[in-house]
């Protein structure tokens, strides 16, 4: 008899079970369990080297897991690719030369069982105006958009984007996300890797946070943003006990480093006002947005061990 859980995981868009992969001595992915439902837009967020790309390569069948399993709509990655269920935009890669954009899209469409109409792909990705240009004569941003068109051409149920906007300028980036949103709105599952919190927050329903090959947090975008979107206030302030500072509005945690204090704040505006009001002796003040690296270290509790070593 199948339970409700079995049925849910059987129809999961993506199901990763105890997934691990190492490259030589480096454990790139370390026991990842993840279920993504059809129709979700999920960001894999993490610093470089967190294991995002390796996880994506295993979902796509480009890398073989050492242990664990990958299922895409209940199929192996190879079967899902064969069925045209997966479209992907990899981190790097150029286009095939000596064809026009339209010809290249038509060539790729011919490989799939149920492709989108070529004109439809061109218009969704906003490249109708460059359809008759040769692929080797495109700018970097145009090339990225053609690559996104190649990812969509199979009319996939799952779209995977590995740091898709790295080579794009601000305007191209916005247009790119507009077209991806339009595609996701057709009930598609979208998974993208990024190391920009803003991007994950703006375009994903759910954020899966990765660090050192593991998932360290997983939840709705707003929740994750509150956790990792921290600001740090540093100030020289001797002789004040830390608990007096963490009691201030907007401060989440704090530590002393000799004469200086470091406060991790979820609302740095409120915190700085409170700090200056209650402790006017504070000097050498700086406020910085915590990098993702720093946020991860806080989350995984590794910052202490890092300092000791």
């Amino acid at each position: 008899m199948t339970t409700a859980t079995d049925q849910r995981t059987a129809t999961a868009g993506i199901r990763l079970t105890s997934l691990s992969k190492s490259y030589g001595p480096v454990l790139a992915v370390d026991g990842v369990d993840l279920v993504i439902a059809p129709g979700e837009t999920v960001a894999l967020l993490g610093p470089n080297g967190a294991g995002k790309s390796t996880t994506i390569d295993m979902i796509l069948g480009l890398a073989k897991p050492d242990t664990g399993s990958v299922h895409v709509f209940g199929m192996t990655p190879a079967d899902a690719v064969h069925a045209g269920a997966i479209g992907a935009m990899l981190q790097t890669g150029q286009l095939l030369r000596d064809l026009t954009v339209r010809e290249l899209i038509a060539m790729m469409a011919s490989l799939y069982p149920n492709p989108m109409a070529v004109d439809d792909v061109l218009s969704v990705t906003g490249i109708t105006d460059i359809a008759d240009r040769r692929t080797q004569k495109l700018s970097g941003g145009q090339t990225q958009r053609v690559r996104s068109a190649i990812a969509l051409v199979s009319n996939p149920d799952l779209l995977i984007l590995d740091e898709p906007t790295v080579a794009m300028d601000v305007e191209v980036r916005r247009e790119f996300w507009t077209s991806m949103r339009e595609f996701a709105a057709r009930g598609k599952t979208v998974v993208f890797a990024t190391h920009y919190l803003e991007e994950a927050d703006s375009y994903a329903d759910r954020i899966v946070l990765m660090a050192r090959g593991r998932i360290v947090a997983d939840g709705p975008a707003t929740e994750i943003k509150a956790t990792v979107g921290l600001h740090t206030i540093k100030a020289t302030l001797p002789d004040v006990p830390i608990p007096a500072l963490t009691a201030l509005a907007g401060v989440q945690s704090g530590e002393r480093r000799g004469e200086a204090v470091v406060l991790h704040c979820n609302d740095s505006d409120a915190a700085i006002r409170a700090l200056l009001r209650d402790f006017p002796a504070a000097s050498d003040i700086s406020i910085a947005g915590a990098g993702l690296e720093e946020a991860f270290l806080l989350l995984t509790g590794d910052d202490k061990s890092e300092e000791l070593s």
Partner: protein
Amino acid sequence: MNPTYLKYELIRAVRNKRGFIISLVFPLIFFYLIAGGNRHQQLGGISFPTYYLAGMASFGTMGAMIALGARISAERSVGWTRQLRLTPLSVRNYIRAKVLTGYMTALISLALLFVAGATLGVHMTPKGVLHMTALIVVALIPFAALGILIGHLFTPDSMGPVIGGGVSILAFLGGAWGPVGGDHGPLHDISQGTPTYWLVQAGHTLVGAPAWDSKGWVVVAIWTVVLGALAAWAFRRDTSRI
């Protein structure tokens, strides 16, 4: 094989400047330059234009097959092969399409040379044309394997010297530019041991020269087996790591 995919592969092969020049333009230019000025002479016992038609046919068709290696190499280096791993196209069908494209460009090169030959008064019968074409198709098998081999072995940067140098040496040794080593002797034996020699000989069947003797079939078969095994090895080595 998917005809749309094949169509665009062929378009790419013809549009590619280097491939176009090596397999389609050079043979025609050389044919007119060399054979045009000596059209009433004899070479290797047959009329000069006929000899050069066969020689340039071997040069052009061989170039067309080896150019498929240049395309494989280029597509590997820009990550296109990896992109194709995300499509239902199998690596075997990818290679098949490349070989078919090589053959199609070779046949275009051949057709252009037949037209050029007619303008210089080379005597051609439909039977001779068919005979020559069929034998060239067979003689090109080892070159298809050679194309796959170098496509998986070399980077696009080293492809220029490999193709330019390799094609020229093989073409020269095989007698594409004129008979090599006379009727006997070591150079003659070396020449007969090249797959190009038999490609050129295949061309001579146009004017009713006898087809390959058993030596020809053996030489072509040995090259096919050796280059085929090497190509299969290079292909597997390359496609097992992604």
